[in-house]
């Protein structure tokens, strides 16, 4: 019923004169714009001309070419693809929230300020930290914020020479990239045979140049860093601070807190742990939580509560290291996360993590029948990493398995990450998947493993049920085409 293959672009559907939205007539006397002579655009812009119906049909049709969380399991490791509660979407669209101009003075925006303040406090409680900034727009910007905060403190302490950031080789790509953006150097730590931080290596590398250790916990293998107290102690003794990449916080809520493990600062991804939608790649929100030592350096703006109960935005002054966005942050995303915490309550929040961990371990047990699970010495947390090594040797790569899963109506796990596992399949089911759903996913994975043995072409030729077949990524680089070509009509 759905047409496969090439679909026209919105530009192909354009015809001169069509309109999709009309404005009211101009009801004020006109100025003639002659002052702008020579400054005006000549010739067409090149935007499409379609009706509302054509536009809607085009994008609805396109939408049906997406896999999504309301279709089935979306077990992308490190991405926490949980269900996005519907009512929270409604909230963010209430005119009282979405109609606020960011230059309004505080007294006109008390409701939003209250939410931002209370959300900060909630996140502080969940992470065990003193202060929280909701400014960063995503996890990566949170990392940058956290590192800038550390850098600012070190500068104030006169420790300018500390410019190294230690991080395990299993770290997410944003970690090294953020360190560089913060003007620091990356020093890689190796993982030991357990898949955890190699303490020896850490002891060796932590020293007078160490600004920080960046650690994901549970790490990207889904394993809790059991030596965490020792790790943070080593870094602190070397004079550095410890940053936790909190992308995996879905494993820990109500169970253990970064602040209680010796971390100094961490970011959260509201678009993962706190159920706000991913939007096909954003917008997210990456709040940063930290100790009172680091708090003064958090960026502008911040929300405080005055003695009279009113809320106030602090946008200047103090030791803040600056700001990374024009306005307060991705406020609309924060609203949804606030609603989420309220919806769940303390027991519910802990139950999220409990169920996330149970689901991951259950799936690991099922998949271990056919797939190698490296570093499998005990329970994992909210996710685990399998290896498609055995299957690779039989002729189908992890990429093939991923594509084949699409034919089974499942989304693929994160693949080829972390780098320390060969043919990695990083699997995070999340707590919002039912056991029935996990069983079905495991069945698909096991069935694919059998296909690899008996009919490998089914796997290497996959996907066959998607709107397009396997796409040529090499060609996309070689013949780079990132905008639709256009024969711009000559100017008259």
């Amino acid at each position, binding site marked *: 019923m759905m047409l496969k293959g090439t679909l026209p672009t919105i530009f192909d559907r354009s015809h001169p004169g069509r309109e999709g939205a009309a404005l009211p007539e101009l009801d004020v006397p006109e100025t003639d714009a002659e002052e702008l002579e020579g400054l005006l655009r000549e010739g067409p812009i090149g935007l499409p001309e379609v009706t509302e119906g054509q*536009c809607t049909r085009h994008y609805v049709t396109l939408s049906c070419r997406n896999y999504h969380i309301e279709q089935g399991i979306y077990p992308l490791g490190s991405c926490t693809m949980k269900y996005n509660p519907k009512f929270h979407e409604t909230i963010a669209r209430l005119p009282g929230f979405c109609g606020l101009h960011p230059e309004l003075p505080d007294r006109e925006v008390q409701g939003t300020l209250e939410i931002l303040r209370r959300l900060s406090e909630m996140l502080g409680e969940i992470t065990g930290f003193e202060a929280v900034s909701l400014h960063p727009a995503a996890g990566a910007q949170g990392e940058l914020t956290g590192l800038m905060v550390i850098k600012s403190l070190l500068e104030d302490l006169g420790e300018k020479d500390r410019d190294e950031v230690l991080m395990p080789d299993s770290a997410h790509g944003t970690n090294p990239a953020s*360190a560089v953006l913060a003007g620091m150097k990356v020093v890689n730590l190796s993982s030991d045979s357990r898949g955890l931080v190699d303490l020896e290596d850490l002891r060796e590398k932590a020293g007078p140049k160490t600004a920080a250790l960046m650690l994901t916990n549970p790490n990207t293998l889904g394993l809790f860093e059991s030596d965490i107290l020792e790790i943070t102690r080593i870094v602190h003794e070397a004079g550095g601070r410890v940053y936790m990449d909190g992308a995996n916080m879905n494993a820990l809520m109500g169970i253990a807190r970064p602040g209680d493990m010796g971390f100094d600062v961490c970011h959260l991804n509201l678009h993962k742990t706190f159920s706000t939608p991913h939007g096909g790649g954003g917008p997210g929100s990456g709040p940063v939580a930290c100790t009172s030592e680091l708090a003064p350096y958090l960026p502008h703006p911040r929300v405080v509560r005055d003695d009279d109960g009113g809320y106030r935005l602090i946008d200047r002054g103090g030791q803040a290291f600056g700001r990374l966005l024009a306005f307060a942050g991705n406020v609309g995303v924060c609203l949804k996360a606030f609603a989420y915490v309220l919806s769940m309550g303390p027991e519910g929040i802990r139950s999220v993590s409990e169920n996330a961990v149970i689901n991951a371990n259950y799936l690991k047990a099922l998949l271990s029948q056919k797939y190698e699970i490296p570093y499998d010495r005990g329970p994992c947390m909210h996710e685990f990493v399998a290896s498609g090594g055995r299957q690779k040797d039989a002729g189908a790569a992890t990429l093939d398995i991923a594509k084949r899963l699409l034919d089974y109506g499942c989304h693929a796990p994160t693949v080829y990450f972390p780098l320390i596992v060969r043919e990695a399949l990083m699997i995070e089911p999340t707590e919002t998947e039912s*056991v029935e759903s996990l069983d079905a996913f495991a069945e698909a994975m096991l069935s694919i493993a059998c296909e690899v043995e008996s009919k490998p072409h089914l796997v290497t030729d996959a996907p066959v049920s998607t709107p397009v077949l396997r796409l040529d990524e090499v060609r996309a680089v070689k013949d780079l085409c990132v905008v639709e070509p256009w024969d711009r009509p000559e100017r008259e």
Partner: protein
Amino acid sequence: MTRYIPNQDDQRRRMLERMGAGSFEDLLAPLPQEVRLDRELDLPGPVSELSLHRQMAGLARTNTGSEKVCFAGGGAYDHFIPAAVDHILSRSEFYTAYTPYQAEASQGTLQSIFEYQTMVARLCGMEIANASMYDGASAAAEAALMAIRVKRKDRVLVAGTLNPRWLRVIRTYLDRAGFFVGEVPFDDGGRLDEDALEAQMEDGFSALVVQYPDYFGQVFDLQPLAEKVHSRGGLLVVAADPVALAMLKSPGECGADIVVGEGQSLGIPLCYGGPYCGFMASRKKLARKMPGRLIGKTVDRAGETGYVMTLQTREQHIRREKATSNICTNQALSALTNCVYMALLGETGLREVARQCYQRTHYTVRRILEEVEGAAVVFDNPFFREAAVLLPASGEAVRDAMLDRGYLAGIPVPGLGEGALLLSATEKRTREEIDGLAENLAPVCREVAT
């Protein structure tokens, strides 16, 4: 247990059995006792949807600002958004999907962002555009960093007529990374100080960042500036208002090398500052230096057209510390919003939005000058849809008093004089509202001044 968690006690028990665990506690074995939280979190809730609705609606009501007639701009504008935009964005196919890692199962996101990139590039008069940045300000900062990667000079000049918030963001990004920002002041006439610019360029620079139209709404031809900057070996980075670009000569035509901007005015609600959407376009030869995601066209095994993320070797997940940026999650859904908005408004619609913003803002200024004794424009240059007006009373006090009368009259810019107010009228502001603003400003200025 809760409305979002499907597995029940009996199911969990069966699952734990299957994996050979006696209880959930067994799964916590890797956590040292000392780090385990031995109490319940101190959080409110749980609340039912109905109670949540009551609480949130109550909070929304205390946001009195949402009902004020809005004449503020400064990088965020109160535009009309057709209902069809939200209809499309509310498709779970779009908003609940992740970054399109599995291209074959993400053609919806990929093709629409490809279309977005195309629209942005055409609007800017550039050859390529990326898949979005966090917001306009951070896009400007990333453009400055990009220029440094291209030109390898550690200094970037910024026009003093740039939005001061954006200037602070650029400063933060560059300072912390060890680079330098030189601010080029403007003269009393509102123009960039040519001598200062010359002098600063002398010292070596990678780029000049200039806003178009500038923060005060002023429109100057970019071409002479582009020539000057190029002749000194720098890149011209233009921070543009996308609505203005439907009416004004494109930065590309004028010689810009990188164009960035804030996409909020293209269909995104004000929402107290975010989520918004930064756009970035450039010349094609700079593609490999560009930060952020790029969607490219390709073919599948059967030769059908499809779309993928491309030039990924620039990105953090491949290139790690050598990446062109640390950005990962961007503002994809906001970019889709921009795309759908531009498709709906289309060629003539967006031009009409620009025309009405221009006309209504000009009418607003005219009416204020008529009504308010002693009011004047700060600068006397052509302006687009934003204007700095000097009132005979404190800008901040006037704004506050006007709020009591139901108007957000603008943004105080004390830097231009105590009575300076930056204001803007979109296509949504009716004649009645504009007249109302002007007629209320007169008595308010008198009251406040005394």
